[in-house]
């Protein structure tokens, strides 16, 4: 087991956002978290990457308890997140943004190899290498955010809403790339509003409702679950 959350609760001030979440991600999997707005999907991501301290419960990663570990040290252990809203550094060029992704690494030839890999996955980024991150389109920024998260060579890639604000064709493309990244050996935990895409691509998925996990199963199971269909897939 690569990642395990046990009974994790988290609050913003007095507002409790997660009520004892437990979930696991195995090595090599794509796991999706789906749910409505405000269900706690992004909060779960923030707990895993360490942006928010948890109130209760424990998080272990790669056999180590990381519940109280600082976010920057989790990156060194192999957790990497593409944040909600992309979090591109606007004044840095595409290239500099990608280099920031490799901030924790020192091995130059290896970093260059990964740069080539990211440019291979997203040829558009290569074309825009020198352009400022802030002046790119939404789709390009999303590619940049995913590419940048890969630059730390993570064991676990956290993707928060990778399809948000993208045109349907681009959504297809970005999910194709996520599957490709996964097949190259990176485990993926993914938060999505687009439940259709997420469930059809993920090995397993969890359904979140108001800070609790209400359902779990394989992607295919949930895709055909009448309740899930009703609530999240928007088709009868």
């Amino acid at each position, binding site marked *: 087991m690569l990642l395990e959350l046990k009974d994790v609760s988290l609050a913003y001030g007095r507002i409790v956002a997660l009520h004892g979440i437990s979930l696991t991600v195995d090595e090599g999997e794509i796991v999706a978290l789906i749910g409505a707005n405000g269900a706690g999907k992004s909060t779960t991501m923030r707990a895993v990457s360490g942006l928010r301290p948890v109130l209760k419960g424990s998080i272990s990663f790669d056999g180590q308890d990381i519940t109280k570990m600082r976010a920057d040290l989790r990156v060194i252990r192999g957790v990497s997140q593409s944040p909600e809203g992309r979090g591109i*550094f606007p004044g*840095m060029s595409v290239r500099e943004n990608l280099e*920031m992704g490799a901030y924790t690494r020192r091995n130059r030839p290896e970093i260059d190899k990964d740069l080539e890999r990211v440019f291979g996955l997203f040829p558009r980024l290569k074309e825009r290498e020198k352009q400022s991150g802030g002046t790119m389109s939404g789709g390009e920024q999303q590619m940049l955010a995913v590419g940048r998260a890969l630059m730390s060579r993570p064991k676990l890639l956290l993707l928060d809403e990778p399809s948000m604000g993208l045109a349907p064709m681009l959504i297809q493309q970005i999910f194709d790339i996520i599957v490709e990244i996964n097949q190259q050996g990176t485990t993926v935990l993914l938060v999505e509003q687009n439940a259709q895409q997420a469930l059809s691509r993920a090995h397993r998925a969890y359904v979140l409702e108001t800070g609790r996990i209400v359902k779990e199963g394989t992607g295919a199971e949930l895709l055909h679950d009448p309740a899930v269909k009703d609530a999240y897939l928007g088709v009868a």
Partner: protein
Amino acid sequence: MNALLESARRADERRAKAAIGIRDRWSSLPRPWRIAVLIAFIALLYSLPGLDIPLITTPDTDFTSVLFLCAVYVLVAVGLNVVIGLAGLLDLGYIGFYAVGAYTVAILGSPNSPVVVKYPWIVCVPIAIAVAMLSGVILGWPTLRLRGDYLAIVTLGFGEIIRVFALNSDITNGNRGINAVPTPSEADWPSWMTWFPTIHEGRPVFSVSSVIGFYWLALTVVIICMLGVRRLERSRVGRSWLAIREDEEAAELMGVPTFKYKLWAFAIGAALGGLSGALFFSKQTFINAQGFDLFTSILWVAAVVIGGAGNQLGVAVGAILLAYLPERFREFTDYRLLIFGVALIVMTIFRPQGLLPSRRRTVELEDRAKEAPVA
């Protein structure tokens, strides 16, 4: 009115384009050329007190003293720029560090301070830098976990606390202040400083009758610090500050130890602030709590923002304007708060990136404007 604003805006755009043109041409010059031009410019700066340039020299005050003040303000701006321009932390109480540096020199070096020790200037200044830096760490440790506006308020309070403490404490002689603040003297110079001239036109350079030594010293310190900060800016430390300033949360997700680097920015800024205060009051030789008011602190922030936060050349220009204009145009003195206030408002509306902006900052501000469109 609208036509006037429009033409002002167009004129400013032309000026900004010209500035960018000059910068591009500058960076396309071969390196030896750039170094040669830079050396010539620095030589000009050193000889400014001797050249009696009409219109620029100040009729009412000693021109060398004005140049010295400009140099000290530039040093202040360079330090404040590390905090505001590079790391993106708003510090409204920067004058507190300036005061800590100044008082450290006065207390340790003056025979008339309540503390019995009397160290020479060359010993006092490094201690002053260290104490100011320490005060930066002590202030930053609990407060740098706060975000944006909270930090501004806490630093504002810090500046005031230092001033009120200086006004009421025994160690600072309260409002009576401390006189005979030590002045650099050749007798204390370590051997590696003998290159620094001690006599100019028959008078000792560090004296009331000839302040040229203070100017040369301050200018030398400014040049060294600007080169140092530039190096830092281009290192991994500068990269970390840049990431924190542009998106702190994303920086954390890249693995940047954000708190550590924010604390570094604060400490380095504080050290430079302390050094400026130490330099200024070594010439002044008298110190009391009067010189450390909140307005000066806020004017410094204004100078950094107006000049162009993030760009050392820009903040230097802002600082020189702040120091020089009231001395050149005496009538300006009474209105400088008003004028700088209005300038700040006009700038935030029309040119938030400053007179000589940093290229990255300009993109950042445009990006922020896109994210939060004003209705």
